[in-house]
Structure formats: structure tokens, C-alpha cells
């Protein structure tokens, strides 16, 4: 009986439903149209590339954050991770390579050698610290909000200690700027990397068991446990991937600015949460799609770009972003209620 009545209604809801289901894409298209109308340079190469690189950095963070939010946790340490992982990796690489007689830091703060090992260490350190977050959360049963907040402070403190507060220059490190500035077929390589990561995550979630593990862990943890799923393991994995994607984002960031500084990425944890929320990932866990977060990161970066092209003062920018977050979250909640 229930299905009968809903199919009757189904007939005339189609257009409204179409808009509802594709809201993010529609917003994205509207933004593009707005951008073209408001600024002649909006579609210019430099501008598009600038948008794409930001989308890559924020998108990577948001994909990691989304996975964590899907298992009903939250990761506040991703911003601090963006500074800590390269700083720690360079400090470790310096130790490792100086044993074999190679000095990788010259003139007090110019990194000149060891790119490969630094990159590997960045990925390793970020994934491990992410997993450490997860392990503390599941073993000590402390809420992730608190553990990762603590980790945020620990990491930024250690970043200061390891770097002495000085910025590191990568301008003399061969190949260091390639990730941040190489262009392939008109598209920044880092954006292609981000898309590859994003698509991989989407495919894995959709077509393998992993998706069911993640969604059930966040959607109804008890149900998952009762089905024999090791939810602790999947939480640790989600945090590991979140850490890792922050590490990759740090690589892009540092490569783009050819430097590593202690404050880089600070505040990005909140932006990543904002993007995930705009993309339809909820704080209650188990709900939302990674593709939404990817589109949302583009929405946010394009909006920021348009606002900066038209020369709006930052005060209004922050208000507009806040409204987008609230609007998107309400829209998602509303469309869930009515579906």
C-alpha cells in the first residue's frame, strides 16, 4: 500500500526530484556561468589552473575527511598534518642521508637534495600519524573530536620544534616544483592526481566490500559489529587515509609554494569539514557520497576565485562561504526528509 501511494506521487515529482538529486552539479554549473559573466579572464588558462590546484589541495583533504565522517568520526588534525608531515619528513631524511654523507640542507634553510626519500617519508609519516589517531580513538575510546584536536596541537608544536620556526626553501631542490606547477594537456598534474585518488576511492567504495564496511561502520556501528565487521579496523583505516591524503595535499602545497612553513595548512581542517558537509556528508555518519565532496571542493574553490576576481572584500567572502555551508547542509537535510 505504501509503495502504491509513493508511485502515484512519483509522477509529478520527477523534475523537482531531478533538481534535488543533482543539486551540487547544478550549483557548479551556475557558478561557472556566473564566473563567465562576471569576469572575462575566468576561463583563461592561468585562472583555470589556479582554481584546479586549489581544488586539488582542498579536495584531497575533503576526501580524507569524508571517509572519516562516513565512519562517524571527525579529523581535526589534517591541517596541522600538512605542516608536520613535510617538516618531519625533511628532518628524518636529513638524519638518514647525513649518515651516508649527504647533506640535504644548505645555507641554514635551503633543502637541496633527497626529494625522493622526502616524498616517501611524507606519505609514510602522514599515514602513520593518521592511523595513530584512529588507534587512540578506538582503543582508548576517546571521542575523535578530542583526540584529533589534541593531535592538532601536538603536531603543530612538534612542527615548531623540528623547524625552529623557520621556513624551509625548496627553490634549490631539483624537481620540487614539478607537482605544484607541471601541466599535462592544459590541466595541472596535481589535479589529475587528485582526480585519480578521488575516482579510486569512489570505485573502491562502490564496487568492493570496503564500501559496505565503511558505510555500515558509520551508519549503524552495532549492526556492523553484529555482522562480524571489525569496525575498529575500518575506523583506523579511515583515519590513515585521511592522514595520507593530508600528506599528499601537503606535497602539492609545498611544491606550489616551493617552501615548507610551520603554519601551512592551519585552519584547513575546518575547510575540509565544510566541503564534506556541502558535499552531503553528514556528521551522523554513514551518509553521503565522496563524489559529492569532490564536486563541493570545486564549488568552494570556484566561488572563492570568482569573489576574488570581482574584488569583493574578505568580510563578505566569509559571509558568503558561511551561507553556502548552512544552505547546503539544510538542503541536504531537507531533501532527505522529503525523499
Amino acid at each position, binding site marked *: 500500500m505504501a509503495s502504491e501511494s509513493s508511485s502515484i506521487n512519483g509522477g509529478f515529482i520527477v523534475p523537482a526530484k531531478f533538481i534535488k538529486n543533482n543539486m551540487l552539479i547544478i550549483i557548479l554549473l551556475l557558478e561557472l556561468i556566473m564566473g563567465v559573466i562576471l569576469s572575462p579572464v575566468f576561463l583563461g588558462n592561468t*585562472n583555470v589552473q589556479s582554481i584546479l590546484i586549489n581544488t586539488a589541495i582542498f579536495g584531497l583533504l575533503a576526501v580524507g575527511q569524508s571517509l572519516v565522517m562516513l565512519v562517524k568520526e571527525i579529523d581535526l588534525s589534517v591541517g596541522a598534518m600538512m605542516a608536520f608531515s613535510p617538516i618531519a619528513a625533511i*628532518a628524518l631524511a636529513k638524519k638518514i642521508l647525513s649518515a651516508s654523507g649527504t647533506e640535504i640542507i644548505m*645555507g*641554514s634553510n635551503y633543502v637541496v637534495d633527497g626529494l625522493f626519500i622526502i616524498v616517501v617519508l611524507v606519505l609514510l609519516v602522514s599515514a602513520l600519524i593518521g592511523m595513530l589517531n584512529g588507534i587512540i580513538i578506538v582503543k582508548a575510546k576517546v571521542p575523535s573530536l578530542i583526540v584529533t584536536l589534541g593531535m592538532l596541537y*601536538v603536531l603543530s608544536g612538534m612542527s615548531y620544534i623540528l623547524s625552529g620556526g623557520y621556513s624551509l*626553501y625548496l627553490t634549490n631542490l631539483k624537481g620540487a616544483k614539478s607537482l605544484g606547477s607541471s601541466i599535462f594537456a592544459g590541466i595541472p598534474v596535481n589535479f589529475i592526481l587528485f582526480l585519480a585518488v578521488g575516482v579510486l576511492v569512489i570505485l573502491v567504495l562502490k564496487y568492493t566490500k570496503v564500501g559496505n564496511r565503511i558505510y555500515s561502520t558509520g551508519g549503524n556501528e552495532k549492526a556492523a559489529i553484529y555482522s562480524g565487521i571489525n569496525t575498529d579496523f575500518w575506523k583506523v583505516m579511515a583515519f590513515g587515509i585521511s592522514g595520507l591524503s593530508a600528506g599528499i595535499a601537503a606535497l602539492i602545497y609545498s611544491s606550489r*609554494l*616551493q*617552501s615548507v612553513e610551520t603554519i601551512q595548512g*592551519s585552519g584547513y581542517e575546518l575547510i575540509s569539514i565544510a566541503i564534506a558537509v556541502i558535499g552531503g556528508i553528514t556528521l551522523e555518519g554513514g551518509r553521503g557520497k565522496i563524489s559529492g565532496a569532490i564536486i563541493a571542493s570545486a564549488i568552494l574553490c570556484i566561488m572563492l576565485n570568482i569573489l576574488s576576481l570581482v574584488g569583493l572584500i574578505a568580510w563578505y567572502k566569509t559571509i558568503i562561504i558561511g551561507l553556502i555551508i548552512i544552505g547546503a547542509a539544510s538542503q541536504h537535510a531537507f531533501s532527505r526528509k522529503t525523499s
Partner: protein
Amino acid sequence: MRKVSKLLYVLLIVVMVFTVVGCGGDKEPAKTGDNQTNTEQPAATGNEKLDALYAEVAGLQGEDALKFFKGLKDKGLSDAEILQFFIDLPLSQANEQIAKLYKDEGFEMYSKSYPKGETYNDFQWSKGSGTKITGPYSKNDLKLPFTDYVALPEGPVGDANKNYKLGVVFHGFSHPWLINWADAAKWEADKHANVELNVQDAEFDNNKWASIMDSFIAQKVDGILVWPMVEAPTGPPVDRALEAGIPVVSVDRTSGSQAITSRITGNFPANGAQAGMYAIWKLAQEGDLNAKAVMLRKPLGSTADAVRTGHFLKVLSYFPGIEILKSYHDTDNREEAFTNAQSALQAYPEIDIFFGTGDHEALAALEATKMANRMDSRKDGKKIMFLSIDDSKEAITQVKDGLFEVNTPYTPLISDIGMRVLLNIVTDSAEMPQDVITPNIPMVTQEGDVIFGMQTQTPDQWYEYTFGPALK
């Protein structure tokens, strides 16, 4: 519970490993600092008159050095030259502690890389000059001190039929110092009808700063005025703009780009040197060149802290009787500075001088000292000396009230100079040097003294130039 404690151990070990590794990494920059400070011979300044004086003063210390300083005026030096003498004064080995500190912290390196030299067209600032404005963004009543420097008449610039599009990127529409910085730039641009300005706030995020630069490049603006928060990450975006043929001018802080079209720097050296001059002059007046000083400092490694402290210490290095008790660093935060001052007061029963390298530090020291009831705790009930830098209205008021001995101003209201330099470059109106030096501002003392022959300003003379909203 055991599991939890095990975990905490693991975490602790991880932290310790990183810290140990980190300490290993930490020592290296200091070592390279050594390499750069091994030359203690006075660097040639290019000014024969001053070089001769430095040769004379090289062997002097204590009372002799004081006598030499007192005689500068009689040697025919102008006020500006006297200040320049103290700024370029070489380090003396007379005070071993200070000489070692100077070397260990690598101040020579900072001092060398900081732009110094003559002002453009040998401009000299005179008290009372400048222009009163209302800040276009902040609505504060301000007085720009340097509107006669690199002066540009009101009205269209360059080709009157052409519209010049300029980008401005900085951080901090939410920060009183920085918003006044933006005010001055905007005010200058607004004077010229054919200049169109796009001012963007990167909100203390260097990636955003780079993105804004890229969007300026995309828009093919005619020129960009920047306030870089830090050097390293701001180099590549500036270089990209230069590659795209867009001139870039920085004001106040410098970017990591060596090739930047032009940079306007403030007068950090004058700040430090004058604080040193005042301390010695005042001690001499009191009749005892022995004193103990605490330095409350901005973040370690920041240019402002290093250059100011370095120039302060150079003047003091001629006097063996002065002892630096300790340096305390904060992260540009008044609370922290206050805690540091409290620690200092607790640790040292005898403090003669508090030297603060920034806006927050001296004010915090004053508060802490009042609270500890130590204002007049020096020998013979003399008042503790507070040497302050950065011209907040509050600090100048303290000088007026006799609570601060001295303030050496540093003002955000110099971005109008940068705007004029940029306009000159964009319109090809005049050849501009890469380094445009901001004129030195004489220190502010309560009554307006003559210190080693140099006339200081009174608080009332400088007050109208201070930044920020009016005090209630």
C-alpha cells in the same frame, strides 16, 4: 586501563623520537650562522665620514665610548647622520656576553640581508609633515607621515586615457595594523582617477595568497602591491607574476623573491639602534653604566625581532657593565608576553631595563611590573626602564605619562609610498630603485630630549601619526 597506558607510552616515545630528531636538526642553522659572522671587521658602509668614525670608536669602551658618542655633534654630524652612525655601528667585543649572543643568534646575517642605505633622492623627513586622512577601510582618523616622499600629484597618472588596473594582496582586514596598511595604499590609489584597485585579503593563508597572485596574473593587472607575511612561500608567486611581465612591489615585509621589482622596507634598524642609544644615554644621566636588562621578544626567527634586537645589542656591546639577563620569546601574543614578563620578574630580583621588540612586549612588561609592585625597585628607588617599539596609541600614551622611557615608532602607514613607487613603475614615469628605504623616524621621549646630539620627538608631536582607532 593497561591498554590505555601502553598507548600513552607509545605516543610518548613517538613524540620523543621526533623531538630528538628535531633537536638534531635544530642545531644546524645555528652552525651555518657561525660561518657568516666570523668576520668581525667593521663592514665598509661606503660613507667615508662614518667609516672614519668607526675606525676611531673601534677600540673604545665604557666611559670612553660614551664620551665619543657625546662628541658626535661637535664633529659636525647632523641629526640624521648621528642616527645613521648608530644604525651602522659595528659590534664591539668589549662586552663579551653581548658579542657572543650577537654571534650565536646570527644577527649579522639578518642585518646584512636587511635593505639599508640612502632614501630615494636623499629625502629627509621633517616633524609635522604628511597628510591627514580618514582610512577608506577602517574609517580611522590617520596622518600619513611620508606623503611627500616619492611624491606624486593628485589626478590621472601616466596616460590619462588609460585605465591602470592594480592588484593588492595582503593579510588581515581583521587586524588594526594591517587594515591601516591597506588604508594608506587605497588612499593613494584613490587620488588618481585612472587607477582601478582590487584589494584582496589572504587571511593569513599563504596558499590563498598565492592563489590571489595567480588570479591577478590571470586578470593581467598592470602591477601588484603586496604585503608578504613570510618570505619562503611568497617567492614563487611573485616570480610567476614577474615572468608574466607584471611589476610587483612589496611594502614592510619582504618576499622570498630576489627579483622583485621594488621593495619598501621600514626602519627596523633605526628602532633597535635608538632603543640602545636611549638606554646608554639614560644610564649615563643616572651616573652608572652598569645595568641588568631583560629582553622580551617577538617570535624567534622573525626579521623584526632579529634586526631590532641586533641593532640594540650593537650599541650596548661597547659597555661591559651591561648584562643581558635573559631573552623571552612569545608568538606575537600579549598574554604570552605578560607571562614571560612575570617569569622574568620572579627569576630576577634586580632588573634595570625591559626591552620589548614589539607592540605587545613592553606593554606586557609594564603591566606585570605594576602587578608585582616593582616599578621603582632599582637601586636607590629608581624606576625600571621600559624601552618600547611600534607606535600604538597606547604605547605613546605611556611615554607621555612617563611610564615608558622611550618609544621608537614603526608605522604601517608606509604603503602609500609603495603605491606611488608602483605607479611610477607602471606608468614608466620615473626610474625606481629596487630598495626604497623608509626615512628614519626619531624616537619619542616624554619631554623631547637631545640624545647624543639628536633631537627626539615629544609624544604630542608624534601622536597624530600613530595608527589604529582613537583611544577612548
